[in-house]
C-alpha cells in the first residue's frame, strides 16, 4: 500500500453483524477500535468498552451550583446591597426567591449538559478529523454501520492485517481512509495576504467609524418625554401680556424663613439674642455653613487666612482678634446681614437658623483658639 492509512473501515448492514464483529476486532488489537453509526445502536458502546458518560454527574454539580448562585445572588441583592421592604416581608424572604432559583438551576444544568457533551466529552466542534472528508462519512450518516481500526498515536497502522481482520469479522465492504498530509507552515505569501487583509480591515473600519461619527450628527434618542405639550417654567409665552410663563408672586409676598431685616443699625443689633441652644446639632450645622460660606475668606480657624484671600488681594478680618471676640452675637448677626467693608451681605445664602448656628460655631472657634487653663480640664 503506497499511502499511509489513518483507518481501515469495515462497513456492515445490520447491527447484529456489527456487534458480532466488535469482540474479534478488539481482540486483534491492531489499533484503536471505533464504531460509526447513523443512530445510536443499543449495546454498542458497552461492547466497545466505553465507560458510562459522566454528563449526569456534571449536570448535578452544576445544577446545585446554579441554584446556590441564584439564591445567594438574590439574598445579596435583597438583603445586603439593596435592602428595600416590599409588601412587609423580611429582606431575605427566601420563598419568593424559589422561582428564579429554579429557573437558573435549569439554565445551568441545560448548558452544562449540552456544552459539556459537545465541548468536553465529544471534543466538538472539530473540523480536522481525517474521517470527515472520506466517503465513509457519507455512508455512516445515512444507513451504514461501520467499525474502524484507526491509527493509535504514533504507531503506524498495519492496513493489510486490519483489512484481513475486518474481512474475517464479516464486514460487507472495506474502505481505507488515508492519513492526511501533515499540514505545512503557511508560506510567506499567504502570511502576507493574511496580515495585509487584517490591516486593510482595521483601516477600513477605522475610517468608516471616523466618517460616520463626523458626518452624522448625534441625534437625541427618544425625547418624547421632553417634547410634551406643556409650557416650561422660566420660558417665554405670549399668553400673558408681560410675556412670562410664570406669574409673579403677589406684591409683598414673604418667603417662609426670610422675614425682612428690621434692625436699623449695629447698636440696635447688639440687643439681639441668639435664639438657638448650644447643642451638638446646632454646632454641626454651624460648622457646615461656616465651612461652606465663611472659611474661604476667614479661614477654617477664623484667623483671616482663607484660600481665597490671596487670590483677591483682600485682607479679611481676623475674627480671633480681641475686637471681634468682644462683638456681641447681635453685632455679628448684623454683619452677616448687611456685610462690612469688602464683605457682601450673606442674607441670601444663609437661613435664619444657619446665621445663628454660624455664630455659635464662631464662638466655639474663638474659645478653642484662646483656651484658658480651666478649659483644659
Amino acid at each position, binding site marked *: 500500500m503506497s499511502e499511509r492509512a489513518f483507518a481501515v473501515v469495515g462497513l456492515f448492514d445490520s447491527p447484529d453483524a456489527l456487534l458480532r464483529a466488535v469482540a474479534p476486532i478488539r481482540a486483534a488489537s491492531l489499533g484503536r477500535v471505533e464504531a460509526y453509526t447513523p443512530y445510536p445502536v443499543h449495546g454498542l458502546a458497552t461492547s466497545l468498552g466505553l465507560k458510562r458518560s459522566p454528563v449526569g454527574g456534571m449536570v448535578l454539580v452544576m445544577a446545585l451550583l446554579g441554584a446556590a448562585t441564584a439564591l445567594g445572588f438574590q439574598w445579596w441583592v435583597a438583603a445586603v446591597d439593596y435592602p428595600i421592604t416590599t409588601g412587609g416581608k423580611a429582606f431575605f424572604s427566601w420563598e419568593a426567591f424559589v*422561582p428564579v432559583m429554579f429557573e437558573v438551576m435549569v439554565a445551568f444544568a441545560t448548558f452544562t449538559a449540552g456544552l459539556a457533551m459537545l465541548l468536553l466529552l465529544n471534543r466538538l466542534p472539530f473540523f480536522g478529523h481525517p474521517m470527515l472528508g472520506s466517503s465513509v462519512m457519507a455512508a455512516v*450518516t445515512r444507513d451504514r454501520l461501520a467499525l474502524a481500526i484507526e491509527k493509535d498515536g504514533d504507531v503506524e497502522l498495519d492496513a493489510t492485517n486490519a483489512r484481513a481482520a475486518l474481512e474475517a469479522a464479516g464486514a460487507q465492504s472495506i474502505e481505507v481512509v488515508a492519513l492526511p498530509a501533515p499540514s505545512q507552515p503557511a508560506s510567506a505569501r499567504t502570511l502576507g495576504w493574511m496580515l495585509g487583509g487584517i490591516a486593510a480591515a482595521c483601516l477600513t473600519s477605522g475610517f468608516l467609524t471616523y466618517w460616520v461619527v463626523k458626518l452624522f450628527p448625534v441625534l437625541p434618542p427618544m425625547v418624547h418625554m421632553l417634547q410634551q405639550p406643556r409650557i416650561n417654567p422660566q420660558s417665554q409665552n405670549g399668553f400673558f401680556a408681560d410675556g412670562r410663563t410664570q406669574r409673579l408672586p403677589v406684591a409683598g409676598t414673604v418667603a417662609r424663613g426670610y422675614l425682612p431685616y428690621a434692625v436699623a443699625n449695629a447698636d440696635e443689633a447688639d440687643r439681639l439674642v441668639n435664639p438657638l441652644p448650644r447643642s451638638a446639632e446646632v454646632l454641626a450645622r454651624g460648622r457646615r455653613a461656616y465651612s461652606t460660606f465663611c472659611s474661604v475668606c476667614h479661614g477654617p480657624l477664623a484667623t483671616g487666612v482663607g484660600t481665597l484671600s490671596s487670590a483677591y488681594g483682600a485682607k479679611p478680618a481676623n475674627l480671633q482678634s480681641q475686637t471681634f471676640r468682644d462683638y456681641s452675637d447681635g453685632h455679628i448677626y448684623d454683619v452677616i446681614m448687611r456685610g462690612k467693608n469688602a464683605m457682601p451681605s450673606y442674607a441670601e445664602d444663609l437661613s435664619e437658623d444657619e446665621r445663628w448656628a454660624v455664630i455659635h460655631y464662631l464662638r466655639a472657634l474663638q474659645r478653642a483658639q484662646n483656651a484658658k487653663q480651666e478649659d483644659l480640664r
Partner: protein
Amino acid sequence: MAADPVALPAALRPQPLVIGEVTPGVLDDQVLSHTETRPPLKWFVAVTFTSMIATLGLALLGYTVYQGIGIWGNNRPVFWAFDIINFVFWVGIGHAGTLISAILFLFRQRWRNAIARFAEAMTIFAVMCASIFPAIHVGRPWLDFWLFPLPNQRGMWPNFRSPLIWDVFAVNTYFAVSAMFWYLGLLPDLASLRERARHPLRRAAFTILSLGWRGTAAHWRHFEKAYLLLAGLATGLVLSVHSVVSFDFATSIVPGWHMTIFPPYFVAGAIFAGFAMVIMVLIVVRESMNLKHLITERHLDVMNKVLLAMACLMGYSYMMEGFTAWYSMNPYLHHVFTQYFFGSYGWAGWVTVTCNVFLPQILWWPRARRSYPLMILVSLGVTVGMWMERFVIIVISLHQDYLPSSWHLYRPTLVDFGILLGTFGIFFTLVLLFARLLPVIATSEMKMDLPGAQPTHAGATHV
C-alpha cells in the same frame, strides 16, 4: 424481544410507527431532500403572504415604539390587554412542543419522534413571538435591559419578590433551553445534510452547523445521556414556565386572578392550545411534503386524543373556577365571575367554553379524530377559544375593579389587532422557512426505531 411474539390481543400489540417499507436511506431521501430542492410555487405564494403579514406587524411594532403605547386601546383600569393576552397565548402555544419532545420522550412514546422536531421548532418560534409583547408593553423598549439584574450606576436591582421578574427568568430560560434541545437534536441530521451536500458552500455551511459531528459510539453515548437529561430538565421547565406566567395573575389581589388553581390550569391550557396549533401545522406539512407514511393517521389520532383529554381538563378547570368563586363567599369574586358570562363581554366567556370544552367533545368519535375537516375545525376552535380565555381572564377581570367609579369598557384599536395578526405572520413565516431549510423530521431518531435498526439481542457479544 424474543422471535416468537407473546400472544397479545391485537389492540395491545405494538403497531409499526411508519407505514410501508422505510429504510434509513429512503428516510433520508424523503425527509432531507426537501431542503435540497427548489420549493414548489405554493410555498413561495405562502411565504410571500405570511411575510407580508409579518411586515405589517413589524411596521406596527415600529409605530408603537416610535409613538408610544397610547395608540393601543389599553386604558385604566384595563392596563393589561392585548399585549399580555398575546404574550400568554404565544408562550402557551410553545408548550406543546416541549411536551412532545421532552415529556413524551421520557414516557418512551416512540411515535413522538416523527413530530418532535417540528413541534420543537414551533416552540422556539412561538416563544420568539411571545417575547415581543413584554418587551414593547413596558412602553420604553429601549430600556428593556432594566429587566435584567445588571450592575448599574443607579445602584438599583430588580425586585426578586415580583412575579414579573420571575417571568423574565422563566421565559428566557425556556427559550434558551428549547433552543439548546432543538439544536442538539438537529446535530446528527445536520451531519447527514453535510454529507449529502453537493455545493461546496452548502457543505461548508453544514460542516460548521454540524460542528463536525461524526457519529462515533462515544459521540452517541454522551449524546444520548445529555439528551435524556435535557428532556428531564425541559419537563420540569415546561411545567414551571406557564406556572410562573400564571403567578403574574395569581399573586395579585384582583378578583378572578387571585386563585390557587391558576398554575395547573394555565399549564393545561397551554398544552391544549399548543397541541391544536401543532395539529393544524402538521396537517399542512404531512400533505404538502408527502410524509403521510411517516406522520401517519395514528399520529393524528393520538394527538387528537391528547387534545380531547386536555379539553376535559379545561372543562374541569372552568368548573373549579366557578366553584371557587361561589364557595369563597367573596362578593367581588361573585361579581367578576358573573361578568365572565353575563356582563358586557359575556359573549367572550361563552365562546371560550364552547370552543374549548364543548366543541372538542366530537373527538370522542373515532372517525372525527381521523377526519381533516373536523380536526381543523376543532383545532381552529381551540386556538380561538384559548385566546378568548385569556381575554376573559385579563380584560373582564380588570375592567370592573373594586372602585365602580373607575369602571371602563376596554376597546382594542386597529393597531392592537394588527400586531396580533403580525405575530401570526412572523410565526408562520418562520415555520415555512424552517420547513424548507432544515429537516422537519428527526431522521436519526426515526432511524433508531425502524424495524431491524437495533440488535435482536440474540447476538453473543451483546452484553
